[in-house]
């Protein structure tokens, strides 16, 4: 463990009965880093968060925060701040009472509590509502109170369990930006749990994509999107075109693949005969000019206008290609029109097909 690692989860596993919810998970987070655990429901992301908070204990493995092993330490001695999905604000206390709760439990002097509450509420711009009852606040305001309450105790790490998912879309997007700025300003170390990929890509320094109790990929948002490490990440984050095929030859990090839409070249290392999925992101597909690495003839199936760009579905050889075209390029297209789409080899990935049985070379 390097001295910059502020939160370290090592080989953590958790089972509930016969189901393995977490399977030997490793995670290291630096001080001041914002990390998102992204995945579908049941992937283990909330369980991992609860292990870190101390609300659940790992069967095996360890958790340490700020250089201290807290694996068996109960939540009230961990100094973590948690913002829950439904905020979990105390209905019998006022806004200020909620924010002061953690400090009062710690028996801090009154003056200190008052100052800390004022500071935390000012940070979330709710200073003027300090004496209101919780029930008088809107969802967005409650969210801020929950954040202020978690911040007030100056935790070593802040944990957000789907904290923005209860807000409506517009407010959620506003809060994403605002919270990121706020957490940056106070140099907080934070972990967000979410199933919302936009939230993950917008808010974090690194994203851990989780599936089946494991972290499939931990990387910067851009890399997660542009260089997905697995078919699962490719599917879960962003849109893509996916075409199954069989590798016919391998050469220096690229493979030639026989697919229903013709011969395609992709980056990756597989032995000939491997069943693979060839994939690319929609923004790389363009009406072909002739010098692209891959090109496919097809027929426009549908066009979804999205303002500055359009999503075009093209059918070819029984497969579907998804292209995201700028407005002017899609303007002259009509359903059923013939189109030739091309895209570069370096933006073409190959992943082992899910039912793959042949051995895979290092990719």
């Amino acid at each position: 463990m390097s001295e910059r690692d502020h939160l370290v989860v090592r080989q953590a596993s958790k089972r509930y009965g016969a189901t393995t919810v977490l399977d030997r998970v490793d995670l290291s987070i630096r001080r001041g880093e914002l990390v998102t655990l992204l995945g579908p429901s049941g992937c283990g992301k909330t369980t991992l968060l609860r292990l870190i908070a101390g609300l659940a204990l790992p069967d095996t493995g360890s958790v340490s925060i700020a250089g201290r092993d807290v694996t068996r330490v109960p939540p009230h001695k961990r100094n973590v701040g948690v913002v829950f999905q439904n905020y979990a604000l105390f209905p019998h206390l006022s806004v200020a009472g909620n924010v002061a709760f953690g400090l009062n439990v710690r028996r801090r002097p009154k003056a200190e509590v008052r100052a800390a509450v004022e500071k935390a509420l000012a940070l979330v711009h709710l200073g003027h509502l300090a004496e209101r009852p919780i029930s008088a606040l809107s969802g967005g305001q409650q969210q801020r109170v929950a954040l202020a309450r978690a911040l007030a105790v100056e935790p070593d790490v802040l944990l957000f369990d789907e904290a923005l998912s209860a807000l409506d879309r517009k407010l959620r997007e506003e809060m994403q930006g605002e919270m990121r700025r706020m957490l940056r300003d106070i140099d907080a170390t934070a972990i967000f749990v979410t199933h919302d990929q936009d939230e993950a890509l917008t808010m974090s320094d690194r994203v851990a994509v989780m599936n089946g109790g494991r972290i499939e990929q931990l990387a910067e948002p851009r890399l997660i999107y542009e260089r997905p490490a697995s078919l699962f990440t490719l599917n879960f984050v962003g849109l893509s075109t996916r075409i199954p095929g069989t590798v016919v030859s391998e050469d220096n990090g690229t493979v030639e693949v026989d697919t229903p839409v013709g011969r395609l070249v992709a980056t990756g290392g597989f032995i000939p005969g491997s069943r693979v999925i060839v994939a690319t992101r929609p923004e790389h597909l363009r009406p072909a000019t002739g010098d692209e690495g891959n090109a496919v003839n097809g027929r426009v199936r549908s066009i979804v206008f999205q303002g500055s760009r359009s999503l075009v579905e093209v059918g070819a050889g029984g497969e579907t290609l998804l292209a995201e075209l700028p407005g002017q390029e899609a303007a002259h297209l009509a359903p059923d029109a013939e189109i030739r789409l091309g895209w570069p080899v370096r933006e073409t990935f190959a992943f082992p097909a899910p039912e793959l049985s042949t051995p895979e070379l290092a990719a």
Partner: protein
Amino acid sequence: MINRLATLFAWAMAIGAALFLLAPLIVIAAASFSPTPVFDLPVDGASLRWYTRIGQMDGFWPALSLSLQLAAFSTLLALVLGTLAAIAIAQGRLPGAEAIGTFLVSPLMMPGLVLGIALLQYFRMVGFNAAWSALLLAHLVVTLPYVARTMIAGLSRFDFTLVEAARTLGCTYPGAILKVMVPALAPSFLTAGLFSFLASFDNYPVSIFLTDVRTKTLPIKMLQYIEEAPDPTLAALSTCILAATVVLLIASDRLVGLHRMAGTGQ
């Protein structure tokens, strides 16, 4: 037009029902001020003479004391037992939790007479004949469902992540229960206690089978009076009980709000 007529009709029905329910109470309250020894409306002058006679009724104070004791003790016991049972049921990890909850609440649906006879038979069979304790047990059977029902409802709306939130903020588990769950459930406790107390205090059908000559609850004593000497003293007493109940309700409303207690508000 039809809509307005329907609304008007609904309002008329609501007001009619309220009047129908309130009328006997108004009549009894009015009759308690009657200057004559018959149940009469005080048209020519009111009198408080029947109120001064309440305390002089034969056996009134012991009966009142017994009823208050039974109501207080059975409510206290029911609150503790009912809340613990409700926690087990609401947490939902108990096998057959729902069935147990239904069973706990079932005496509510049972006619008091049946319950009274059954308890009398049962106590005789096991040779249990201490009237006070038998009455307390019987009243516990009567009050427990009220508490269990209210607490199960209250706890099913209670968000257990509040307890988790308190723990991450520095509370121990028992501390979190005390600091968060108990205050959040205060309205449920109050409602449960109130229902339970009133259910015990005015219970007649169950108590009647378990009283002996010296141990009589107030409702039983009152019925005895009405058979022996029907004068407006009883009306005065009823009015007092009514007033006490209203005061209790107003106090509860001030404390937590009736809409929260009835579970109709936020």
